[in-house]
């Protein structure tokens, strides 16, 4: 399926927003969150550019599973480091170990369900961190209310991850055409909510 002009515009806007977040949106944070967010938004930016250049075929690459793990994992690590002071080290260890586990289970052929289990745990924990933590913090008044928008971005990236997973398993609940049609808009909305949440939160 070819990219339409509107897909290209949406992807370009995604790239610009992610680029803005890397360049301006995370200034003033501690070193580790800066590294984590730079990696997360940087992958969003480069992935958006690669889809813009090469089209949706890029999503068929086996590397997509690994790349799509980096985004939630790095964003979740940044959030945990900033707002869950007592879990900093353990969350960082979880992030590194689970990322290595995802790479290994993808690189070594396995017939059992272990690769899926590793992926589910990694995405589940990271996804819930990005989705719930900002919302809870803003409800508790520990951050400004609009920080909850980061959580909305987390929910959307979860939807994006699910759609991609359906695409990869070959048993999508939505057709490939519909998933690809939704994907650029979903990517833009996700990035926009993240950027807005960090900016106004």
């Amino acid at each position, binding site marked *: 399926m070819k990219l339409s002009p509107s897909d290209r515009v949406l992807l370009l806007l995604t790239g610009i927003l992610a*680029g803005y977040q*890397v*360049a*301006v949106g*995370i*200034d003033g944070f501690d070193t580790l969150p*800066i590294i984590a967010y*730079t990696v997360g*938004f*940087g992958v969003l*930016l*480069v992935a958006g*550019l*690669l889809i813009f*250049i*090469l089209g949706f*075929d890029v999503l068929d690459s086996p590397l997509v599973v690994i790349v799509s793990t980096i985004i939630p994992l790095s964003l979740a690590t940044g959030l945990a480091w900033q707002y869950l002071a007592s879990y900093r080290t353990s969350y960082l260890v979880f992030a590194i170990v689970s990322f290595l586990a995802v790479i290994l289970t993808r690189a070594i052929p396995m017939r059992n369900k272990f690769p899926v289990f590793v992926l589910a745990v990694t995405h589940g924990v990271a996804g819930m961190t990005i989705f719930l933590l900002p919302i809870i913090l803003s409800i508790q008044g520990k951050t400004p209310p609009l920080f909850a928008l980061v959580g909305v971005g987390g929910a959307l990236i979860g939807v994006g991850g699910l759609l991609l997973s359906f695409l990869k398993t070959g048993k999508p609940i939505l057709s490939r055409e519909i998933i690809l049609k939704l994907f650029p808009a979903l990517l833009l909305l996700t990035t926009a909510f993240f950027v807005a949440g960090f900016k106004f939160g």
Partner: protein
Amino acid sequence: MSIAQSQIVNLKSKIGAYWALTKPLQSGLLLATGLAGYMSARCPVLNIGTILGLAISLFLAIAGSTVLNMWWDRDIDAKMGRTQKRATSSGLVSENEVLRVGLLLSIIGVGWAVAMDALYGLIVFAGLFFDVVVYSIWLKRRTAWSIVWGGVSGAMPILAGRALGLGFIDWIGITLAFGVLLWIPTHTLTFSMKFAKDYEAACVPTFPSAYGLTATRITIAVSSVLAAAAMVVAGYGIGMAWGFLRLLGVLSAGLLILALVMTFRPSERVNFGLFKYASIYMLAAMILVVLEVM
């Protein structure tokens, strides 16, 4: 159709043909590097007279050298599928007229540049000289290494722009020029791989024909990575804000990953991806330099 109408139609098609001969996208990108080089000097960038003078003189000189190249290469262009429809090869414009237009654009461009600033004019002239005389006339049909001199010429606009802003040549200007010089093989070598048969038919030596595809891919990968490194170092030298450097680093990492994929898992699609990404990278780097000083 009256004579006047037909003359207007002819004039329009000629202007269109000459516009295409200036390779507007490539000239525009080189012009962007010149403007970014000027702004990187953190001189009073809102001096409209200087900016306009820089833009017009540089564009005329770049367009002039491109037209002169087309004039010189018209015989080999006619043998290559990719270029045989160019106005110089298809006979849409006469050879002598193309030569005159190329010379006129070049003389006005370089003359204007010299009138603005002697050093700036000298660098613009050097770019034109390396492109037309050294690259096209002397080396292009003799050695695959001619692209290095094509690259040197492509690096001159950014050096010229910075020299105009500063009044002298500094290490940052040279590093920026190296960045562009090392970025150019990504373009030219990708083209020479994609259109290898064309170049072979025209008897133009290229890296793929002289050293093979693997060596060419490795050269592209190494030059892309070095180009990115040069841009980051230059950005640091300019005093780019930490956030902008971070973004440049992210974009450079994308270039590095594509270069590695092309080296170890080559395919035409990855080649094309790197080629396009490298253009976006350079444009983004120039935009960051401009934003930095705005």
